[in-house]
């Protein structure tokens, strides 16, 4: 019965590649010192299992590299007429529906690193503390547009408590 209500796959918006690039840069920033540290241990300590230690951060980073890709692909949002849909997660999959009339405020924030990569985070707050509707990275122009659109629709459809 509800198939007709499920949004058209084409209306789902994906996140900009800058988010993926920022996360991968952060990953490299952690991996390089870790590899150097394990290399130092390998050089100073003799014995055969120690060279394998270097492989650990490299393997973790390699896995994370592709995990970032998959998480980035899975995170998407769709603006419907009366609510915003956010779908995300690989391991724990989530689908969040936030009606515009229920939004109390929309936060757009960008830290120094995010600004450098040209992305901003959009977070939606309702009166319920448990609703976690967040879009981790959008281009600033799109984030501002989304914020204004959400606020405008929220005012138009405001329903009180």
């Amino acid at each position: 019965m509800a198939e007709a209500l499920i949004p058209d796959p084409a209306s789902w918006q994906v996140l900009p590649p800058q988010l993926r690039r920022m996360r991968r840069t952060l990953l490299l920033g952690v991996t390089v010192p870790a590899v150097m540290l394990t290399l130092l241990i390998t050089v100073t300590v003799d014995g055969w299992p120690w060279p394998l230690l270097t492989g650990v951060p490299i393997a973790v980073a390699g896995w994370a590299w592709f995990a970032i890709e998959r998480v980035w692909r899975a995170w998407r949002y769709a603006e419907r007429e009366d609510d915003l849909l956010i779908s995300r997660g690989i391991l724990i999959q989530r689908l969040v529906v936030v009606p515009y009339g229920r939004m109390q405020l929309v936060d757009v924030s960008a830290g120094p690193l995010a600004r450098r990569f040209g992305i901003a985070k959009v977070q939606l707050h309702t009166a319920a503390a448990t609703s976690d509707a967040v879009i981790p990275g959008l281009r600033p122009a799109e984030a501002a547009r989304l914020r204004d659109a959400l606020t405008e629709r929220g005012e138009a459809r405001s329903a009180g408590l």
Partner: protein
Amino acid sequence: MTTSWEATEPTVADPPKPPEPPDPPQRSESPDPPESSESGDDGYRRLHPLTPFLRGWVIVAAFAATIGRTFAEEVTARAIGLTMLFLVPAAGIYGYCVWRFTRYRLDGDGLRLDTGLLVRRTRYVRLDRLQAVDLVQPLLARLVGLAVVRLDLAGHERRDRADSDGGSATSDLRYLSLGHAQRLRGQLLTGSARPAAASPTAPDPFGPSDGSDPPDRSDRSDGSATLAEVPPTRLAAAIALSPAPWVAVFGVAAIAVPSLLTGTRTGVLGAIPILGWLWHRTVRVFAVGYPYTVSTSADGLRLDSGLIERAHATVPPGRVQALRITAPLLWRPFGWVTLRMNVAGSGPTVLLPVARHDEAMALVGALLPGVDVAAVALTRGPRRALLLAPAHWWVLACGADDRIFVARHGLLRRHTDIITHGKVQSIRLIANPLARLLRLADVHFDTIDGPVRVRSGHRDRQAATALVYAQAELSRLGRRPDHPDH
């Protein structure tokens, strides 16, 4: 601004008086000069003159408790006397200053509250933002006929709640004489219920009360009807059938008996905290829950409770976000349930501590007119969810009609959660790795914080996705202004 009202305040230097019968009903903006000693020419009013004594006493007690704990051995009677000689006037002056610099005024659409001796603070409470107005009577205040008017505001006021007895220091009016408090509450509620006609001169919904009535009856003149009461025997039996006293008794026995047998006293001392907990879970529950009356009033459901500390709360039906009917295992033979609710603002969360099932259903019907919870068909999840919930799979069920969503869960404590579609804040589908292996998912319905958390339980993944979209559609319809649940 400070100088102007100080100049026009005629009764500043009046010494505190013993409690007097409340003044005749008067509007805060009435043109004729008020006879009350608590009202100035500019419509500002003060708290009751006994307030400094009740507040200053708290300081003395707190200081005495600290001294007593830290220097129990060294302090002599003379030192205590000297400290008190200094402390009692200091507390008195503090209390006087707090009273002297606290005043309030009802404006057209809000309540203005000025506080603060060194840092002046003006708080303006809009009447249409008011979630509830409660009257609270702590024991000491009750003895002298005073009451606290507690203003509950939505949302961000909660972080202010750091006062000694759980109230917000800045949105409480403490203390007013009981008659005054009831009148003010009536004025605030008429203002908040009908913002268009909001005016302090609006007729008092409770009618003129002459202040000599007993506190529980004086504002029942608006034809209210009692919906439910908790008989003391049932409450006592319900407490006896709850696990807490048995846990405490066995805990005390487990700790105290071995040490008594061996002749040491440490174990007996160790049992004292458990006894305190036992007191908290039995006698206190009884004192809070009896007498307990739920009645209708013009503004919503009225809850009157408490043996020693009377608490009066009004729950406007539209503010109730979700309901939970809980039937603990040992209560089920008697058909008793507890009714809890999520309510906007910081009102009480227990609607009925213990009631017969049909009473609870009647109350649900009063809060959600036209809703029949029993008629909603509940369906279980697919059988493969047994792997995730082997013991209570058969309890987990949910269903919806065009007004409400109902979910049932809990093996020993059977919960039935009810939420109207229009009150859903957001809908979340969550599929954990294990649930994904079994093609299952869980749907959460987010509401205002409270004891009720509504979730569907393990459902088929496809059905859960369909449920999310169907509920989003229902909740969109439920938010419409012409919808009965709006």
